[in-house]
């Protein structure tokens, strides 16, 4: 029987990391506010044709000759509220993202290990991925309009993390001292972050869809809801994020099974955490199926997507606290 000393290996790193996380919450809140200003007051601007954007019918310039394009699409217009404030919001979000990266690194240095070994670190890393996915979507799909919807859960989760889940950086329990942490846990974090953005886009879709229906029924839709881009476009972004996250989630489950096989002597034991990962996986598989099933595409499929993220969050919070199992390291 021997003893070792615990506690942060590097106090300076630990306090840098703790300060940064508070700063991140402030910065993201500012960005959230600015995004909200853009959503409410930005001018509805046609999005450039490009990735995920419809090529619209009519004449298209192909340098010097006219190319006449005829597309059969049921899509609504691809317009989103935009103004300069939104660009600033994006910049502020980018700054927050960089701070988040530094926070992660300093936390890792402080604990002298991979910085995602407990619930606090996990949720912070997942928010990092979600913000990264938002930045990617803004760059690739011009989806800056998702800013508000992604940053609300990010700020909330970071707040919950700091307020209730915080633990000092330190060594891990033996079960987590394995090279599977960077493999399995990283995969769940990446998938979780992307599912989060997908869920945010799904909620936005449901709002936009309601606005479209109301408008079709002849009512006027005012406020942010009436200024969202077409539901079709939101649906497509949401789908893209699931396409990205679902194989990673699948991989995470398999990697987890291999790890469980090494650590606990069985690769699958229906432990509550495993059950809920499986439930999430099945729900996202159902989502992908629903999009290919008549009558389910659109609202039905989107609700399944939202449900999927609810189960991911349930797995994270409830399973760690409510159930006793090998995975409960709350």
């Amino acid at each position, binding site marked *: 029987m021997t*003893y070792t000393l615990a506690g942060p290996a590097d106090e300076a790193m630990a306090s840098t990391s703790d300060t940064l996380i508070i700063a991140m919450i402030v910065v993201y809140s500012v960005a959230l506010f600015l995004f909200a200003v853009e959503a409410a007051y930005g001018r509805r601007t046609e999005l450039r044709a490009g990735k995920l954007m419809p090529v619209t019918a009519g004449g298209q310039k192909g340098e010097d000759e006219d190319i006449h394009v005829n597309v059969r699409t049921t899509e609504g217009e691809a317009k989103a509220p935009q103004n300069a404030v939104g660009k600033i919001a994006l910049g502020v979000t980018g700054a927050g993202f960089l701070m988040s990266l530094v926070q992660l690194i300093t936390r890792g240095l402080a604990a002298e290990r991979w910085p995602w070994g407990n619930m606090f670190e996990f949720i912070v890393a997942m928010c990092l991925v979600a913000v990264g996915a938002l930045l990617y979507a803004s760059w690739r799909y011009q989806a800056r309009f998702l800013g508000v919807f992604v940053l609300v859960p990010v700020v909330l989760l970071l707040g919950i993390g700091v307020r209730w889940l915080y633990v000092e950086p330190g060594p891990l329990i*033996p079960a987590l001292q394995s090279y599977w942490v960077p493999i399995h846990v990283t995969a769940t974090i990446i998938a979780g972050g992307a599912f989060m953005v997908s869920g945010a886009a799904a909620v936005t879709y449901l709002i936009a869809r309601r606005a479209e229906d109301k408008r079709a029924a002849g009512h006027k839709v005012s406020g942010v809801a009436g200024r969202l881009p077409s539901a079709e476009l939101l649906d497509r972004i949401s789908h893209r994020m699931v396409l990205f996250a679902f194989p990673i989630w699948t991989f995470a489950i398999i990697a987890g099974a291999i790890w469980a096989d090494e650590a606990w002597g069985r690769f699958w034991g229906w432990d509550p955490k495993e059950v809920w990962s499986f439930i999430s996986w099945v729900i996202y598989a*159902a989502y992908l199926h629903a999009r*290919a099933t008549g*009558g389910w595409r659109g609202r039905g499929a989107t609700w399944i997507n939202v449900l999927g993220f609810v189960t991911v969050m349930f797995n994270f919070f409830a399973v760690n606290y409510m159930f006793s199992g090998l995975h409960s390291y709350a």
Partner: protein
Amino acid sequence: MSTTTSEASTESGGSSENRPKGLGLTGWLRWAWRILTSMRTALILLFLLAVGAIPGSFLPQNGVSVDEVDQYFRENPDLAPVLDSLYLFDVFSSPWYAAIYLLLFVSLTGCVIPRAMTHVKALRGRPVHTPKNLQRMPYAATFSTDAAPGTVLEQAKKVLKGYRIEHYGDSVSAETGYMREAGNVLFHVALIGLLLALAAGSFFGYRGNMLMVEGEGFANTLPSYDAIYPGHWTDTDRMEPFTLQLDDFEVVFLEDGELRGQADSYSADMTYRESPEAEEKTHELEVNEPLTVDGVQVYLLGHGYAPEFEVRNAEGDVVFDQAVPFLYRDTMSFTSDGVVKVPDTGGEELGFTGVFLPTATEDGQGELVSSFPGPENPVVTMEAYQGDLGMHEPQSVYQLRTQELEQIGESTVMEMGDTWELPDDAGSVTFSGYSEFISLQSNRDGTRPFALGAAVTAVGGLLLTLFVRPRRVWVRAAEREDGRTEVVLAGLGKTEVAANNQEFHELTTTLAGRLRNSEPDDGPNPSDPQESTNTRE
């Protein structure tokens, strides 16, 4: 939208209208089969699979922890039998859960095999004939060029790199992304393979739990286990004949800071033989380092203390001298409970219940508690019983049957080496030291590699399904009245991801650009309409 998608949906959508009216048994069967293999049914079954799993996480499961199930029965004596009759403590081996996933897999087979056959045909075939009216495609672009139709089609073939191309008169028909469908079939088939591997594993393998005190050995036979869960067809008389011995066990605890008391590492020095004749080998067993012996995996699950007791009878003869494993209440204090049973005293049988505190400390109220999991100040307190232990009936080694026993006294706090003289001249008990024990699990499952193979194949198939974009492109080039060539490029994405008009549009602009650039050298003289007609194939 995609064609595959709409094909799948018409199939399911039509099912209710095509309900058989007095079609006899085959008609009904065919109808049932069509319903079962529809996408809608697959969706519902997937939901049921998810919903059905929920009670498996809320209620304790026999497959995970029998003790917790027993506890649930004790705490909810009225509700538990009802839940049990619904198999809710064995959700994942219950008939109703099996019904869900078996139906799902039948549905899957019925869905995927026809698709696979269609796909094989498509793989052998050529790209379809160019439709008459390309304007009806989801994407169609029209432009005119001075290049001759033949040149246009030649250039189109170059632009459509990676497509399978067929020339039909004044047009080319091209298709790509065949791997998507193959991937989809592969994915679904791999899921069936995974299920089969899991089933085979549970029928032929076994899993067992055992406990070893430092210095003790273990032979892999049925009676050596504390608990064993063999599959239906496992031959438990012929288990792998290995033996194990625990030489030493060491835990490292964190001593400082917020995490004081948390374990930092465990390691168990093991000696083992594959069979009685085989040579002896050693292995350091750690949490993420199982031992593989003769195809069986042996894992470290937990650990605890086994205080050693020496019991003497009234005559002063030693009637018991061994380490007794005590089970801990929690991992932060390692306060542990155990039972010592001494049936052979020469007189009345003796029994003890004991509490072991590895680091005994007085708390604020003067109660003795353990403040650290490591053994910094190990003590034991005991209660002694005399009478009939009831050993003729099977019973747990961790519980004392007190019905036929009479309590004869309580000890004071005993430190190592202390002896307690029992009341009524019943003898004495000495707390002579302690060892550590480990709990182990052994697992024999020969299908693990197949399960892994199936899972990896599934991921591969999934990636193909999700990211390969099957699409068709047609280019038609025809000469117009004014001598210029009218080019129509139409595109059809067969899945949603492939139905990206932007991509077809890029093909159009690339083609238009190439034709413009190639005009001076390989195109015929644009000012002479006659000549361009001649080059037409």
